[in-house]
């Protein structure tokens, strides 16, 4: 019944991801780019999960979980190196 709704929602999430990606490119500081990059990776994870649901295929779902973990690891390691002063702006 919802076969036409899921592609429209995927397109909406894709548009939001593109708007986030503009902030990745424009970010005045490296933290803005990291923050927007987190949102882009989570958008890609959600779109991959929706593709897995739409095509009823299990293979893309594992990649979505690793993208969620990637966003967290990017936050924590970038913060760690910024606090230590080993990475500039």
């Amino acid at each position, binding site marked *: 019944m919802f076969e036409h709704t*899921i592609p429209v929602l995927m397109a909406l999430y894709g548009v939001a991801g593109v708007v986030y990606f503009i902030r990745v490119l424009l970010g005045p500081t490296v933290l803005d780019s990291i923050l927007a990059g987190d*949102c882009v990776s989570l958008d890609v994870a959600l779109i991959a999960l929706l593709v897995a649901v739409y095509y009823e295929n299990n293979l893309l779902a594992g990649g979505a979980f690793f993208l969620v973990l990637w966003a967290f690891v990017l936050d*924590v390691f970038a913060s760690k190196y*910024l*606090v230590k002063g080993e990475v500039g702006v």
Partner: protein
Amino acid sequence: MILSLIGVVLLIVGAVCDIFGAIGMHRFGNFYLRLHAATVGTVGGKFYPFIGAGLIALDRGLLSVAGVAFLSAFTLLITTSVGSHALAYAAERAGVVKIEHNELGGDWDD
């Protein structure tokens, strides 16, 4: 059927929150305000859609996809707050973002 309906409603609400968060990332002029917009776009725009996608997958009999979706949502709910706090701490400690007007600094120089 009812699980798919709830899932689609959660996906629509999440899409609206995600687009609001994406607009806020460009409208707000400071890193800390953009952190708030990103949190709106992450918790409202990613956590609820993960739950919704899991409900749709559960209704269609895709148990592995549903399990990954619920696990991703739970992981996201925990790690988003930790990551945001770490980024704000790093921004303040490294001096990357300057605080223009500190409301908590007192009125000694007024």
